[in-house]
């Protein structure tokens, strides 16, 4: 997936544990783990809102776009 979720980076910056964040935003640690390991297929705006509120950041701070190699090859052509 070219979209990388950087929740763990923000967690480290805010010195917050995963369990604490999961409790604050009201999702299970299993689901937070799916999000952190980039296995998630989509993220609800409501979840994004809660994460931004809990970590006091912008969506751009936790989501990052990295072009996949195929896309880079397409652009070069």
């Amino acid at each position: 997936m070219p979209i990388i979720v950087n929740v763990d980076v923000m967690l480290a910056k805010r010195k917050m544990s995963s369990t604490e964040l999961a409790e604050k935003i009201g999702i299970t640690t299993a689901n937070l783990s799916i999000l952190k390991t980039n296995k998630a297929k989509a993220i609800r705006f409501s979840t994004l809102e809660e994460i931004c509120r809990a970590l006091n950041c912008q969506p751009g701070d936790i989501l990052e776009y990295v072009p996949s190699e195929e896309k880079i090859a397409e652009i070069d052509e």
Partner: protein
Amino acid sequence: MGYQILGKKGLSQLMEVLCTVFQVLGVILIASLPWTLNYYLLLKNTTVEPRIYYSMIVLLVISGICAFTILIQAKKVLHNINSKSPFTFDTANRIKYISYLCLPVALAYIIGIFFIPSVFVILVGLTFLFLAACIFIIAELFYQAVKYKQENDLTI
């Protein structure tokens, strides 16, 4: 109506139990088929040619074996439904097998029309053919449902 359809104490649970009952009854019936058929013909006070008699036995054994396997699959599907995880590839595969298993029955009855002169034989054959197609479509729907469920499960 306070009766629930899914889950424990629901219709699906009853059906799961009924599948086992029908399996046992089916095995008894198929194993004792030559005697049961004779008794049935005696009861109706009719006699049939040996050719028709043996065709009837072959037809009933084929459909009995297929029905037994269908019941095994149906029981597993109902078990999946009762354990609250109906939308899995396992369920979809089993529904597809059920549709495949309807085909030999349909084929046997359609061929059977050449041996047994009864309109009901062709009727059963066509019904099973129709059922096979319907169940196959439901299996495809289940495959799509599984994909949607996976997508939904991975939406956080």
